[in-house]
């Protein structure tokens, strides 16, 4: 964003793009464990952000890697940075332990030197690069949410970004999603997971249950979440918006969101005690599973109240 002379913070993009979400995705398994997400797919966040602020973005997917490369080169020649959705497994600069078949990772390519692409990856402290072949491999990773060369880039900007109206739209959309009457989404989704967690030790055995619970924590605290399943970054957005809109209520709600974020961290800490200690009996493990499930139910109740208040605050 800064490239085109607009200074917009990461929480701002996340908030306006309605990034916050909670969704349990049934039937899908990654790394042999169930999947839940704490955010929307980054492509969607950008799409919503752009639409609400008046930026025109172009999004493209490709079936042929050659076309995908040609379009990328074309943009870079015009000095136009491009966002790419990629798979993590073949990203060579990732530590081995982090290379899973996860396809919803995003990066920005901002230039090309010889046959190496210059890359800014949000999880890296400094910029990095990939060869043509390496980049093609991650752009055409296979599996769930296969990126299919997905790329997006701005084609025109408004004179001035209309942040105020965009913020209101973004918040409303998030409240709607979090309070949606769908059993696997938002607050209801959190209750659903809590219910599943209660069943795991008996239904799947301790080993699998621990593995599943570990995955829940890893998704919540993944690199790039800013901690607490994106709750902190959302609180940062509310604080910034509250000041911008002169809305004291949003600043107050930001504090509340921070506290909810802390509860998510507590849940992760409690959950980690379970899977760290693998030798306990089934009985005591079932109790601890019930305990973390209670924590989740509590968080869900708080978030329900929170998003109702948030809806009224704007």
């Amino acid at each position, binding site marked *: 964003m800064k490239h085109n002379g607009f200074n917009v913070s990461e*929480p701002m993009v996340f908030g306006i793009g309605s990034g916050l979400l909670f969704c349990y995705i049934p039937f899908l*398994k990654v*790394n*042999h464990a169930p999947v839940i997400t704490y955010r929307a797919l980054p492509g969607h966040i950008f799409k919503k952000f752009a639409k609400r602020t008046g930026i025109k973005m172009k999004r493209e997917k490709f079936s042929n890697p050659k076309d995908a490369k040609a379009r990328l080169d074309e943009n870079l020649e015009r000095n136009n940075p491009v966002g790419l959705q990629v798979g993590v*497994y073949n990203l060579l*600069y*990732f*530590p081995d*332990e*982090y*290379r*899973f*078949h996860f396809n919803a990772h995003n990066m920005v390519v901002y230039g090309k030197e010889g046959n190496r692409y210059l890359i800014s990856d*949000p*999880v*890296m*402290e400094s910029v990095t690069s990939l060869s043509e072949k390496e980049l093609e491999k991650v752009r055409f990773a*296979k*599996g*769930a949410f*296969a990126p299919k060369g997905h790329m997006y880039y701005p084609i025109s900007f408004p004179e001035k970004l209309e942040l105020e109206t965009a913020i209101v739209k973004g918040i409303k959309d998030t409240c709607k999603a979090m309070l949606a009457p769908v059993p696997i989404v938002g607050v209801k989704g959190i209750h659903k997971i809590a219910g599943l967690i209660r069943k795991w030790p008996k239904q799947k055995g301790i080993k699998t249950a*621990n*593995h599943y619970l*570990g*995955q829940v*924590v*890893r998704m919540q*605290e993944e*690199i*790039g979440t*800013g*901690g*607490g399943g994106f709750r*902190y*970054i959302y*609180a*940062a957005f509310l*604080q*910034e918006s509250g000041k911008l809109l002169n809305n004291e209520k949003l600043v107050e709600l*930001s*504090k509340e969101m*921070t506290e909810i*974020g*802390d509860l998510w*961290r507590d849940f*992760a*800490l409690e*959950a*980690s005690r379970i*899977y*760290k200690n693998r030798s306990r009996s089934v009985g005591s493990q079932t109790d601890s599973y019930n305990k973390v499930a209670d924590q989740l139910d509590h968080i869900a109740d708080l978030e329900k109240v929170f998003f109702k208040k948030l809806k009224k605050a704007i």
Partner: protein
Amino acid sequence: MKKKEVPQDKSNLESANFRELCYAVDENGEYTTENSSGWEPKTVALKNAIEEINERIAEAKNRVIAGETSPIEYYMELHKMDVGILASYVGFWHWKVKRHFKPSVFKKLSRKTLNKYAEAFDISVDKLKSMSLEK
């Protein structure tokens, strides 16, 4: 989370020169960012997941040696894949990939088919067939 509470636990991030960006509030309640070197609950979850994968790989290896499955399954586990992911990389149906796990079927696979698997695993066909089962 307060800025000074951002965890700085030991993790394998350091070796790769990685640090995580966390959002936290400073003394005045203002949001800011702070780098974290890792957080134990997460490191343990990751460690357990890696152990689990290593167990799966070792088990697949034993089954290949015992003649119960083909090297395809071993390499699939080695690359942290499941049947669905492997199937989409090689362009076959699930059931077909599973059939190729049978040593008797594996022996009769054409060079073309083997090549698809070899490409997905980034190894040579000879290596795939050799049963040497290296990393």
